[in-house]
């Protein structure tokens, strides 16, 4: 079992390394897929950091300042907690935090992420962030259900909610193959909690940056860093549950996990740049009427397959 003294630095180092990689991925996508007249998110780059130093930080007339500062901190803490769940090496118990109900903890991370984004939009007491926050809760809550069914589908063959057991159950067949609908549906959740592309209802351009419309200086950088951290945590979780995590023929476990997580992060960045965002009401109907039945189907497939 990895003690807290080793788990803590390991998770934070992996998180910061991942965030720098996400910064590079974003810059690459921004260059390759083309630039758009209005572009908003900062990245963990020297320019981003330099932009913050010597900048004045303004609040709005009567914000909930404590909640405004708590939001990025909660968002970043949840990303770190989510990443800590991921087993780094193949040997059983090599996860920084190995708890018996691993995917339930990830569910709690998702639920609290919806709260962090709502708090971020609510606390500045300005209309555009407020509308972004409320719109996001509708989609965040709905897509969370779909991800629950998909994760449970992955837990069936493992016979346990522990992430190391889920990795163990994929020794001969990855969950990506065992339940084909699993990863696509889970990626949609990734787009929602990292505020990217088609499910970015919180910080959308039609609300002038949505919940971050009133952010500036440190708060803006803190929010963007937390967003990048959540992408790292989500990519690692998706790689663990669907792509076998550290399992792989030649390379050592952590290298495989890094490669798979990097791939998932790249796919998310590209989807974020490519797909258009439907109307919020239309997306909510789509999630409940199409995606939820699909996740039921995915669960049924996983169930039948686990019986074999």
């Amino acid at each position: 079992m990895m003690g807290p003294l080793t788990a803590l630095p390991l998770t934070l180092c992996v998180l910061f390394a991942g965030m720098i990689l996400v910064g590079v991925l974003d810059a690459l996508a921004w260059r390759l897929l083309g630039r758009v007249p209005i572009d908003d998110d900062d990245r963990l780059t020297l320019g981003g950091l330099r932009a913050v130093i010597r900048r004045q930080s303004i609040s709005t007339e009567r914000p909930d300042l404590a909640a405004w500062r708590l939001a990025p901190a909660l968002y970043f803490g949840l990303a770190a907690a989510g990443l800590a769940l991921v087993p780094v090496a193949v040997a059983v118990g090599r996860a920084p935090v190995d708890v018996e109900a691993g995917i339930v903890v990830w569910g709690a991370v998702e639920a609290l992420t919806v709260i962090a984004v709502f708090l971020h939009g609510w606390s500045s007491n300005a209309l555009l962030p407020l509308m972004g926050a409320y719109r996001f809760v509708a989609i965040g809550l709905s897509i969370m259900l779909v991800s629950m069914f998909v994760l449970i589908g992955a837990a069936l063959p493992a016979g346990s909610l522990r992430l190391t057991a889920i990795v163990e159950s994929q020794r001969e067949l990855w969950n990506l193959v065992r339940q084909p609908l699993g990863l696509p549906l889970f990626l949609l959740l990734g787009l929602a909690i990292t505020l990217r592309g088609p499910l970015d209802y919180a910080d959308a351009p039609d609300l002038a940056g949505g919940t971050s419309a009133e952010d500036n200086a440190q708060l803006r950088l803190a929010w963007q860093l937390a967003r990048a951290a959540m992408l790292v945590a989500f990519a690692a979780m998706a790689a663990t549950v669907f792509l076998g995590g550290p399992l792989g023929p030649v390379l050592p476990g952590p290298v495989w996990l890094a490669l798979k997580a990097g791939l998932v992060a790249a796919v998310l960045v590209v989807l974020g740049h490519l797909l258009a965002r439907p109307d919020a009401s239309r997306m909510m109907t789509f999630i409940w009427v199409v995606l939820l039945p699909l996740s039921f189907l995915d669960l049924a497939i996983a169930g039948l397959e686990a019986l074999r």
Partner: protein
Amino acid sequence: MAVSEAIPRGHRQVRYFAAIGEDALAWVEGLARDAGLRRVPTPRAASLLLIAGRLPERSWPALRRVHDQMPHPRAVLHWGEGAQPVPDAVALAPAATPAVAMRALQGDLDRGARGSSPDLLPNEPPAPWLGKGPHGQGGEGMMGGTPYGRPMTMRGDELRDGLRLDAHAVTLGPFAPMLPPGLALDLRLQGDVIQRVEVMQPPFRDAMVEAPFAAAIDRPMSAAGLERARAVHHLRCLGRFCALRGAAAPAARAYASAYRATIGGRVDLGSLRRWLWLSGLRPGIAPGLGTLSAAQRGCLSGPALRAAGVPDDLRTRLEPYTGVGFAPIARQAGDVRARIDQWLAEAAQALDLAARLEGLPPTTFAEGLEGPAGALGAPAGGDRGDRPALDLDALLRGLEWGQAVSVLASFSPDALRRMLGAAG
């Protein structure tokens, strides 16, 4: 792929907020190709305020508020002619490219060589409140007074589900990045559903869009050049719409195609069509969104009219076009989806026409021609004076905010200005 210069050494990206005035939308959107400049949607994230084009007097109070909302150190660059709304703004001629001036300005700010531009508005709270009320917060009871300087929203009627909750009255200003430049709307919202809309200021005039077409009325212009200008206009409108819907890659493709069309290069709209299909833009829009009622259709013109089932196009009666067998494209639905498809189809058609009209000598269209947003000059037959004004309230009432922004973005800003009955 868009042409982009790498960021010169030693300079970080300049973050600017663009307050777009008259005839300047195309210029500002052209700046996106420079990798060193990033246009941000809120002044909070910007260190430079770029005032592009001429700002009418009525929008100066709004510009002062936007200027004061920027964090220090900040600077202002006025790129265009006309009076100076901000006293210590750096003026720049319209012909010059602002990238160099903006980087120099940002460098001065970073090194402290240039002071931050001071507030233009007095440093007083919106309404005096300190000391009043039990906690000195300026309020009384539960909902009374002006706590912390502003009153609280009160309840109002509700259109859709009858829950009489807070009717939030707000004006979204002339420099809102998601609205056409200059359009100021007075909204009454319940949540994010619009209860009532009133146009406070119509969009700013954008003569750049129709400059080549207006010139063709009194002096000979090449018909191929006009068609390329039309394609550029449609592709830019499409790019703006995709950017608002969060489809960054197709939007960048559309702007890149528009740029290549301006420099006369070969444009492949097939790849743009594939990007748009892949992005799922169309299925994301509710069918029938933004359809005008039969009475309102009279105010439509140009591509919007043709998307609503009326194939009325001056080019069917004008000499060079009839020679190459021009046939107008029309759609029936007249909703946001149809208008986007119309832009893409007409852009492809215009580029194809430009290729076919390449060899012809320049001609003048003395009795008028089909501009990108409707007929121009005094065309034979229908006159333009009797067109009714667009009732924006009827169009946007009951829509959620994202849908309303999409409906406004489905018209070209200049067409919207004309439909709202703005003179000049």
